[in-house]
């Protein structure tokens, strides 16, 4: 078939055994930085497990785990500048924590409170978008504003493999190409969209091939390797910031979890495939690398886990200590100022509360 024989090379630094296959990128060539990457992944994993547990015990609502996909967010966040903007989806915790979003805010959102998206320490990043792929469109708008103001900034927006089937994804990459906007589209290709495997999602040879439809740069990267993700994103962001060259990055990973806590993947996922993917997961690999090449000890490892657990414990306490919204606050943020209708409805509502408690 014409065209299908074109290949995107998959960029890898660490192999599944933690063996470094190319020299480290300069920006990561110190032990501290590498440990930081590891710490971010561990932090994410520890948080993720705790969040699932909160859901299971009824202390929080439905939650989408990102187990197995921690390297993507870690590499992406590490490559971003503070004044770049993130337009995320729901498996980007590792990125969000680097962007200043608090763990307790993430819990608060999944705990059913809008304040979880208020982001005390992050003014410009978008909240996650539940309607799949819609955020791609916002990202190009943010990128347009940066270009309009001639700022050397860029946008990273993320989505899943399933999202690449949606019109919004394609309209966005196409307009990013047509208007030459500083935006990087990162696709977390975890091979599943709830119960639909990638093979049913698209016949495209790879997700990276979709970049050709928009005339933007395409990259494929090992999404279980935070070094590779960092490196590719750094390059892509550089081109975006300085040359207004948009790109699409396909990060290959696997969803080592149910779709969300409301899902049961055993209904549809072949156990063998899952077991094989487990072998490739980022934390084991990175630890092996650190042990082999960076004098990483079991004690170091334990101490990092202990640290992360402490952080998460604090976040859970903060989550549980959040004040309730004042009664009827849901009327208050629809518009800059409550309309007359909303004012009347709020009064009516308050009167009802008064009557019935």
């Amino acid at each position, binding site marked *: 078939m014409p065209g299908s024989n074109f290949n995107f090379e998959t960029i890898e630094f660490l192999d599944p055994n933690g063996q470094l296959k190319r020299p480290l990128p300069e920006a990561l060539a110190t032990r501290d930085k590498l440990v930081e990457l590891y710490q971010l992944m561990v932090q994410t994993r520890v948080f993720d497990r705790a969040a699932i547990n909160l859901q299971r015990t009824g202390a929080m609502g439905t939650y989408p785990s990102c187990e197995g996909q921690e390297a993507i967010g870690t590499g992406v966040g590490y490559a971003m500048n503070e004044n770049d903007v993130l337009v995320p989806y729901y498996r980007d915790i590792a990125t969000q924590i680097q962007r200043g979003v608090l763990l307790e805010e993430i819990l608060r959102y999944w*705990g*059913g*409170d809008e304040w979880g998206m208020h982001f005390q320490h992050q003014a410009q990043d978008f909240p996650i978008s539940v*309607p799949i792929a819609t955020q791609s469109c916002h990202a190009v708008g943010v990128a347009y504003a940066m270009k309009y103001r001639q700022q050397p900034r860029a946008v990273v927006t993320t989505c899943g493999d399933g999202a690449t089937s949606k019109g919004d994804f394609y309209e966005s990459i196409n307009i990013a190409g047509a208007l030459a906007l500083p935006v990087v589209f990162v696709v977390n290709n975890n091979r599943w969209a709830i119960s639909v495997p990638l093979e049913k999602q698209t016949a495209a040879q790879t997700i990276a091939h979709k970049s050709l439809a928009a005339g933007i740069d395409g990259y494929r990267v090992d999404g279980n390797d935070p070094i590779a993700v960092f490196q590719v994103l750094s390059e892509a962001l550089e081109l975006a910031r300085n040359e207004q060259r948009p790109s699409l990055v396909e990060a290959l990973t696997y969803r080592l979890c149910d779709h969300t806590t*409301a899902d049961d993947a055993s209904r*549809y996922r072949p156990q063998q495939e899952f077991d094989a993917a487990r072998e490739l997961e980022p934390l084991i690999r990175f630890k092996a690398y650190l042990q082999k090449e960076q004098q990483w000890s079991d004690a170091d490892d334990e101490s990092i886990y202990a640290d992360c657990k402490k952080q998460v414990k604090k976040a859970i306490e903060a989550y549980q200590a959040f004040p309730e919204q004042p009664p009827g606050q849901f*009327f208050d943020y629809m518009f800059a100022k409550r309309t007359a*209708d909303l004012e009347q409805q709020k009064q009516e509502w308050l009167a*009802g509360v008064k009557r019935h408690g």
Partner: protein
Amino acid sequence: MAEWTQLEAVNQAFASEMGRDENVVVLGEDVGINGGVFRATEGLLEAFGAERVIDTPLAESVIVGMAIGMAAQGLKPIVELQFMGFIYPAVDQIINHASRLRNRTRGRITCPMVIRAPFGGGIHAPEHHSESTEALFAHMPGLRVVIPSSPARAYGLLLAAIRDPDPVVFLEPKRVYRLGKQVVEDNGEALPLDTCFVLRDGIDITLVSWGASIKETLEAAQQLAQIGVDAEVVDVATISPLDMGTILDSVARTGRCVIVHEAARSGGVGAEIAARLAGEGIASLLAPVKRVTGYDTVMPLYRYEDQYMPGVNRIIDAVQEAMEYR
């Protein structure tokens, strides 16, 4: 005879009609091996095969658009949209095509198809999973909008929707999907569309509702009975086109009306019912028509959704106001 939840009734209606008519096919995200995120299509893949139970890519516009093409060829596609909050990408196909092809071609190409979506709040689901925007579709010429509120009506109305020669938006109140079972005969018999169901006779006031709110409406009626108010309860069921006759008849007898729905108040389907009462029905009205509804706000995230939902207390308050009006 079996006892079913609404969800089981939906599933059985599928099984029954797919067994009867091989033109019936089901398509949507996760409808196959996963049986749908609510399990409404559970077992269908095994029973009818992957050609008839189609797991699609994640793309609502083409899912509905594709169903239009299938219907034009004589298939009877049933689309599952995962949640009503994800129906909007398909609105263009629904409004500009599904509802218009018959008229556009003067009957040459028709769209016998069903678009199903679970809707409504109250299950502590995430953002965008609690929509009640049935009014959008009720305003669209050329569409039927049908909402069951019990297992028997889910079964009978879904059969009717599948067999109808025109497109039907079939909204399933997910809050009551698994709430309460009912004996339903699996006899393949459809219930009538375009007809209200009077669920409770009464002489003092008419309560009009549909979907999950029927539950609170009936509860309110029961409590009201204890304080001497005898309420008639009408389940609109087909919210478009409206069977206004039944409602007008009832209000002609009771003189008072409270409409209950979860959707935002302004421009909700309650407005159309109240408007017709203000028109044709005005001579019957002894009191203002009250609407007990969701507010003109987004459905709050789950921790606060109870604040939003029209509950039994609010219905009773409205009824009492209406009863006291002179």
